[in-house]
């Protein structure tokens, strides 16, 4: 066995897969290269909550054997990371919460089962905001993850560990979950690609539920082609998730080279309103000009109710969370408070000791919004606003093939900068939340750097039109020619 080349961990899935097919590298060598990279940079980045080196080596050896026996596939032998709110049988699933310390998943999520079946090497579990509630991964009860581009800054959240791991070469790609931007916002902050599929395209079975009508699993990758490759494996109907959609899914890699010539792209004015930094506006404007030069027709469009999306989201998501998190009661799994005299006291103390401040805040907010006397004014009204947002998007997609916007109002902020103000923190999701409320597919693609920090462009399309999202995303990627990696050494 030769020593792995120093750059093997920087390969895309496609590049690595081609090398594996040509016999230039083995899955074991590739996995060793990534494990070495993890050992080298993890003390600075802290992207992972759990790395299982022995299991990764076994999976890699099995992938090599499968390939020798004639096995093929774009993920065979590819080392990947999984957000720690998605179950892998036999591994911890802490959701970065003390209440799940010691929990070992008794089963595979449907997505991790699919990855295993395709021969991927699952390296371990990545850090997140506790129960995916947050925008900086600082709400993890375990550790603070750093942005590989600037270690004093946050990686975004809640899939901050997955985004940082991919950016730092600690996995070729990773899975995240996105409830209000938790894949796209950290992808933008860390200079990688993040895709949230249409609600229902990917099974949520084995994803610890936060807000069930908004949650969706998706890939964080080094380029758009890899996102399409992973989506091919992730998409599909699942009898274990009654909201997963039973339909035929295309080969998502087929339209990547389609370009934007003749495509109509809308630019929602509500998503470049107050709060979006001038630097980000300038980078996005530059990208739009390049897309126009490629034949895209870009026009401003107004979706007035988007100005209320964040407000509606911070009623709906906590309401659903307060219901979903009722299951953490110290009875069936996780930790239990000691010495309670009766069941009710055990519940209250278990939850008080096990949940962190942001999770408590959202449970309280959601319980309030659902309680007698406030239900109609908050939850009922928010659901109606959601209808208006869905309808405005539908009208926009009558006219446009896709909508584009910045992914985030600012680049990655300093660790600690927004922890004192929940509302300030919530505002960093203001551009990504509308796609969750409307269930739309959306991608963030890196398009440039501002003062050394990545900027993401978001592309949204109508339900089940991942093909257009990926096609426009790939065109954006070619125009931006980003291709940069953070310097960590």
């Amino acid at each position, binding site marked *: 066995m030769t020593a792995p080349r120093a750059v093997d961990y920087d390969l895309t899935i496609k590049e690595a897969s081609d090398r594996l097919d040509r016999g230039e590298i083995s899955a074991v060598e590739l996995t060793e290269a990534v494990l070495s990279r993890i050992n080298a940079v993890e003390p600075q980045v802290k992207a992972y909550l759990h790395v299982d080196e022995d299991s990764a080596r076994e999976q890699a050896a099995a992938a090599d054997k499968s390939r020798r026996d004639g096995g093929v596939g774009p993920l065979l032998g590819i080392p990947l990371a999984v957000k720690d709110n998605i179950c892998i049988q036999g591994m911890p699933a802490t959701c970065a919460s003390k209440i799940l310390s010691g929990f070992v998943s*008794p089963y595979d999520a449907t997505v991790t089962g699919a990855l295993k079946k395709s021969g991927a090497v699952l390296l371990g579990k990545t850090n997140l905001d506790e129960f995916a509630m947050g925008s900086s991964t600082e709400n993890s009860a375990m550790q603070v993850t750093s942005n590989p581009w600037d270690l004093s800054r946050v990686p975004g959240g809640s899939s901050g560990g997955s985004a940082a791991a991919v950016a730092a070469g600690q996995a070729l790609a990773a899975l995240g979950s996105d409830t209000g931007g938790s894949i796209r916002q950290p992808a933008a902050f860390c200079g990688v690609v993040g895709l949230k599929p249409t609600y229902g395209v990917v099974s949520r079975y084995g994803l610890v539920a936060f807000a069930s009508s908004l949650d969706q699993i998706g890939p964080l990758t080094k380029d758009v082609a890899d996102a399409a490759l992973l989506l091919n494996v992730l998409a599909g109907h699942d009898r274990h998730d009654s909201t997963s959609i039973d339909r035929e899914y295309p080969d998502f890699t087929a339209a990547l080279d389609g370009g934007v010539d003749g495509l109509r792209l809308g630019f929602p004015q509500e998503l470049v309103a107050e709060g979006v930094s001038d630097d980000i506006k300038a980078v996005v404007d530059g990208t739009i000009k390049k897309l126009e030069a490629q034949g895209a027709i870009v026009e401003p469009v107004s979706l007035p109710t988007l100005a209320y999306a964040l407000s509606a989201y911070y009623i709906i998501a906590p309401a659903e969370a307060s219901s979903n998190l009722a299951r953490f009661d110290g009875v069936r799994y996780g930790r239990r408070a000691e010495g309670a005299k009766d069941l009710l006291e055990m519940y209250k103390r278990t939850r008080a000791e096990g949940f962190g401040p942001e999770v408590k805040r959202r449970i309280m907010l959601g319980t309030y919004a659902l309680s007698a006397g406030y239900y109609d004014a908050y939850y009922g009204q928010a659901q109606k606003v959601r209808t208006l947002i869905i309808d405005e998007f539908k009208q926009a997609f009558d006219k446009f093939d896709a909508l584009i916007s910045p992914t985030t109002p600012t680049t990655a902020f300093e660790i600690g900068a927004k922890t004192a103000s929940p509302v300030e923190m919530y505002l960093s999701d203001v551009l990504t939340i509308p796609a969750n409320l409307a269930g739309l597919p959306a991608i963030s693609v890196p398009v440039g750097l501002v003062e050394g920090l990545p900027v993401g462009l978001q592309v949204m399309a109508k339900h089940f039109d991942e093909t257009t999202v990926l096609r426009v995303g790939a065109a954006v990627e070619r125009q931006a020619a980003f291709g940069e990696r953070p310097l960590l050494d």
Partner: protein
Amino acid sequence: MLISREDVEHVAALARLALTDEETDKLTVELGQILEHAGKISEIDTAGVEPSAHAIKVTNVLRADKVGDELSQEEALANAPDREDDAFGVPKIV
């Protein structure tokens, strides 16, 4: 003041959360700030608008009532903080 300290105590009891006095004070302020922002949705006229619980309309999904390849009792109990024989153990209820 959108939410009082008494409201916070009431909601904490509903949510089965034992909050400290400091947490209750802090949440009274923070929930007030968040509700002030979220309350902007009341500005929108939603007369005649149907509420949406989901973005994608799905109808009830039915299946045959057949036992599949699911967790065994031992697997289901493996993560329990306390068990008694083949059941989850809990403190005294009555």
